[in-house]
């Protein structure tokens, strides 16, 4: 009975019942449309439950009718009554039910697609093979850039301005709402309204190449105060290296050419081809939510990136020594 005491447990239980025998774990948790934590996701989930319920009722009726005609009353049936059943149940009833569903579904759309009122927080997300460039507005002008990670204040609407630099991607945080395609040469919009705090997972929902499965991100919904504090920290320049190894790491970062593709604000590194690394040490994960963010994984990433993420644009730096890999990863780890 422990489960029921937890918030949102009823949804989780429902989800588990439906999914029993398919993929039990896949239907709950941080990346599930059946555990809604946002206004849009709640509507979509309730639509799903209405449809699932209706489908169950129709299924039970159909099975009962089959049993009746095949086993309980297998003789010839009355011609006119049968015709009524076939026309009524096969054509008229589905038309009515589907029309109601369509009207209900279409009614949901305007609210889901509506642009939010002016002054709503706007976050720009660009899809790349295979990562996400995220830009937060900044009072002082230049947007604050980060990657593969989004933080949202609870209880406030937020609008995502979505675009793609290469192929079609699709931006989806199942727990918070519906998905919207990111199309090269076009800008699309998605408004979400997170209602619960917690860590959720977003994913690319449109096959986009070899490492499509490794194109994810984390979403932290936090209270407004915590959000403001986080954003202020992200907008600051990088923290200066705190020890000799990290100092050597920064030197290597600049000498080896990392800065040609990556920006670390507060240093000469101003490349824009790859993700901004100013606060990489503070991120939840590495490689678009592929790995836990720690020094060892950072080091492996620099040394073996194309083996870890097939087709990735970042080249491996094979000429570096173990010592140099360590200095670099110590430096990056300190960029909280």
């Amino acid at each position, binding site marked *: 009975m422990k489960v029921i005491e937890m918030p949102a447990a009823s949804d989780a239980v429902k989800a588990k019942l439906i999914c029993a025998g398919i993929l039990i774990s896949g239907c709950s948790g941080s990346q599930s449309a059946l555990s809604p934590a946002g206004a849009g996701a709640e509507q979509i989930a309730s639509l799903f439950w209405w449809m699932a319920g209706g489908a169950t009722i129709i299924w039970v009726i159909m099975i009962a009718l089959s049993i009746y005609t095949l086993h309980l009353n297998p003789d010839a049936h009355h011609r006119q009554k049968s015709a009524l059943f076939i026309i009524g149940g096969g054509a008229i009833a589905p038309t009515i039910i589907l029309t109601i569903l369509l009207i209900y579904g279409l009614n949901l759309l305007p609210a889901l697609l509506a642009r939010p009122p002016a002054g709503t927080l706007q976050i720009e997300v660009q899809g790349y093979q295979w990562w996400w460039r995220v830009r937060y507005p900044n009072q002082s002008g230049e947007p604050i850039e980060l990657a593969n990670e989004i933080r949202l204040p609870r209880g406030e609407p937020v609008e995502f301005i979505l675009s793609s630099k290469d192929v079609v991607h699709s931006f989806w945080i199942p727990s918070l709402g519906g998905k919207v395609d990111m199309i090269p040469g076009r800008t699309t919009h998605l408004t979400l309204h997170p209602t619960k705090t917690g860590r959720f997972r977003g994913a690319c929902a449109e096959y986009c190449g070899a490492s499509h499965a490794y194109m994810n991100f984390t979403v932290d919904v936090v209270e407004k105060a915590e959000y403001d504090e986080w954003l202020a920290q992200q907008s600051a320049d990088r923290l200066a290296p705190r020890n000799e190894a990290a100092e050597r790491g920064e030197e290597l970062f600049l*000498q080896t050419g990392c800065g040609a593709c990556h920006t670390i604000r507060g240093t000469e590194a101003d490349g824009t*081809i790859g993700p901004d690394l100013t606060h990489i040490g503070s991120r939840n994960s590495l490689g678009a939510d592929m790995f836990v963010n720690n020094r060892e994984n950072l080091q492996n990433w620099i040394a073996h990136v194309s083996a870890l993420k097939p087709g990735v*644009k970042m080249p491996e730096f094979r*000429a570096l020594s173990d010592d140099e890999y360590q200095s670099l990863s110590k430096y990056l780890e300190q960029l909280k």
Partner: protein
Amino acid sequence: MKRRWKIIGTLGLVAVIGGALVVVSGVIPVKASSGHWEITRWFLNFTKERSVATHSTGIKVPDLEDRALIIKGAGHYETGCRVCHGKPDSVRPRLVSLMTPQPPDLQKIVPQREPQELFYVVKHGIKMTGMPAWPELKRDDEIWPVVAFLLQYSELDLAEYDELVWGEHQKQSDQSIDSAEGTSLPVPHLVIEECAGCHGVDGQGRGLGVFPRLAGQNEAYLRVSLEAYHHDNRLSGTMEVIASRMNQKEIQEISRYYSRLPPFPSKENQNGEASSNRDSEAEVASFERGAEIAAEGIADQDVPACADCHSTTRKPFKNAYPTLIGQYQDYLALQIKLFQNRNRGGSKSANLMHAAVDGLKPDQIRDVSYYYSVLPDKE
């Protein structure tokens, strides 16, 4: 009818067994000392000529008149071909004259061949004749200069040949040269023997653009490049052959020597005429476009800023990346194209260049190469 087939079958079997016995018994002489019978020689030659003619059909011949191309081919000839095919007005090496078949005197035979046939033979070699294949089948751009040279070869006398191969620099030992610091630097024997023909004792690459400048280059880069040639990691039919003969100590000696020479001179120092039309409008525009690519990259095409690894000012080297300041435009452009086609190879860092230059378009390659090539004048 049936009987006839039986006889044919029996005769066939006897022929096969008889043939096998001849081979297994080892009575056939494979010795080179006796040469071929006239009929064998004719048959082998005829087969070879037909094969080359058929297989070289459809090979597109580029323009082969450019003198720089001919000089590049001459350098290749001297290091790879001369040892067997000899040079004009000179005695063939004794050992080579004892080969069967004998490597032909190319001054006589080249006029009878089409350029595409020469290309095919230089690239693929010929089985069982001693003619080796080109060591790097991905580098057609190195093979055409050899063809360009061969097309001129039959007219050359020894002086002209030496002029093509060695330029103004003639082979002489006990030379010394001023280093970048102004001290006198003895020229290593190996440099005179192996490098100077193409790259010059002064490391300026003979001013043609087909051989890179090495003077003042990053010592670590020269070393890892020679090592890459030595281990077949950098692809070149000529440099692989030369570097494969070198040991680590020699590689270090050569790298150190060229890195200590005065760096790439500006165009005025090297060639007075060049400066007169240097600042044409088109060149200024090209320089500016190149400067922007070098400094900023082209983010939309995933091209990072070149200058983050290849500094546009002279400063001490901290890794094994080469300096490009003053390097020949043609040479730089060729390297970028080779990187794009994955035909260059190189040191452990070569893969970085694949990601960096894949997005460059042909005119951008020209611009950025031009920019680095004339940088010394603008510093």
